[in-house]
């Protein structure tokens, strides 16, 4: 399972960076979306993919028995997904407003503030 996931993450990163290097700002946002999804999948995979029981402590004990799955990466991924969702919706609105004001989908035509 791990090698498959590793290939998927690598493909996502490659696609994200390819999209971000295009000149179109719409493709830039698509690249950002792919990038955050790749990061989430990576965190999910780093803690190890265990086929374990849910990490519940049985009554009367202080630690769970047997092999249990690590719940923390999932909590992290959940938080990261929510944050990425908020930030990306901002990015989509920003790109739309930028298009309305600059009237261009081309990063090369947004160089006036550069130095």
């Amino acid at each position, binding site marked *: 399972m791990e090698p498959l996931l590793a290939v998927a993450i690598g493909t996502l990163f490659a696609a994200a960076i390819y999209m971000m290097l295009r000149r179109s700002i719409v493709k*830039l946002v698509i690249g950002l979306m792919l990038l955050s999804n790749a990061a989430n999948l*990576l965190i999910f995979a*780093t803690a190890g993919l265990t086929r374990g029981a849910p990490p519940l402590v049985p009554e009367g004990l202080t630690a769970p028995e047997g092999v249990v799955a690590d719940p*923390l990466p999932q909590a992290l991924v959940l938080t*990261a997904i929510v944050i990425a969702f908020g930030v990306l919706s901002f990015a989509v609105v920003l790109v739309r407003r930028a298009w309305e*004001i600059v009237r261009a989908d081309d990063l090369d035509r947004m160089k006036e503030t550069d*130095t």
Partner: protein
Amino acid sequence: MNPEIALPILIPLMSGAVSLVFWRSRLMQRLVAVGGTAALLLTSVWLLASVNREGILVMHMGGWTAPFGISLVADLLGAIMVVLTGIIGFAVALYSLATAGRGHEAYGYFPLMHLLLAGVAGAFLTGDIFNLYVWFEVMLVASFALLILGSEKPQMEGAIKYVTLNLLSSVIFLIAVGLLYGMVGTLNMADIARRLAEVEEQGMVDALAMMFMVAFGIKAAAFPLFFWLPASYHTPPVAVSALFAGLLTKVGVYALFRVFTLIFHHSPGYTHEILLWGAGLTMLTGVLGAAAQFEFRRILSFHIVSQIGYMILGLALFTPLAIIGGVFYIMHHIIVKTNLFLVSGIVHRLRGSYQLKRLGGFYRSHPWLAVLFLIPALSLAGIPPLSGFLAKFIVIRAGIEAEAYGVTAIALLVGLLTLYSMIKIWAEVFWKSVPPEGDVDPYPEVRQRELWLMVAPVAGLALCTLFIGLYPAPIHALAEASAAQLLDPEGYIRAVLGAQGEGTP
């Protein structure tokens, strides 16, 4: 229980919520802005006093002891940074009363400002690395929205670069946190530091250290990752520029200080060497970029980059004196840089332009403004007896003692070039006579009350600069004590995890 650890985060969050409740009332939003930031300043001073008295303070959120729950940790560096946040927040809130404009306030200028301050304070006080990521995001989202308030064309162009590169840095940070968790199985920074020493593959640790360096380097605008800063910082309303210039990049610098003194201090020959060359090149490119500019705020933006180099130099040399210099430099720089941006705002308000060639004659018409510009400008360049002299002196002396002559020479040269830039602004804006009619934009009348609201924070920050310069003993003692804490990660770990250092998940 010490409530003052959580208050600098809770107060801006609450003020933000309250000013959202009064969405339609301009007066209430303004009152909350001044009251909330004043309360933030007071609690942050309280926090610094108690940290100074009792050592590192720790608060476990929800009663979950470390390393299971999220801990808020206030050591001296964190507390100093929170006090600076309070000072800058209060100064910018006062200044915004005169400059924000109805359009910006109607779209939530003040709530966003509170949210930004909460994010910054949270980043300074958290002891959990994932929580640090969350506070970074809180701060970033608020800064995105503040940056595009007004929706003008340059703002949009600047914002696209700012948003993209900062999101990229967040993703790198997030990946690094995930990989670190996979390696040590904990997120509490003290616990990470303890377990990382036991990890066998030091190569992997160095790779992770580099990921953190790149992520925080983008936030701190270090060479070669600074391009988003000069492209965007001169576009928003000036109070927003001043707030960003004072606080945002310094959060990145703070994160570098925290991570590279507490967690990744095992192979300084590798990581700190890279930081050292990064610092030298950051100083040089920043100051050379500024020399080529002829717009008030662009010059200042490039100088942020070059000054970041001095702070990172303090961290990279990694001797006790150098860390003192770095911390001292941060304190001096935040106040001075914000002040220069505020002065540029006053100039813009009086003459309607930031272009140097359209300005002139301020020494004759507003001599007090010339004095208020000279104090932070000469301090930035490092002229004694102002605060910048002492900050540069400590960093450069540490460089000579560590026998890093190359970067020390760069640091000295950059000081000289900074003086050149400041003299350029002085000559063009204040000394030269007013350009002939037709070259000058028509400028609006400024009411006396608004002018006072703009001058008061500038004068206050200038007094802070003078105080640090003329009576540096207490500030230096603070920097010295915080450097001692930074160089003794064991003390931090003991304070967070308890004396026995137990706790296995």
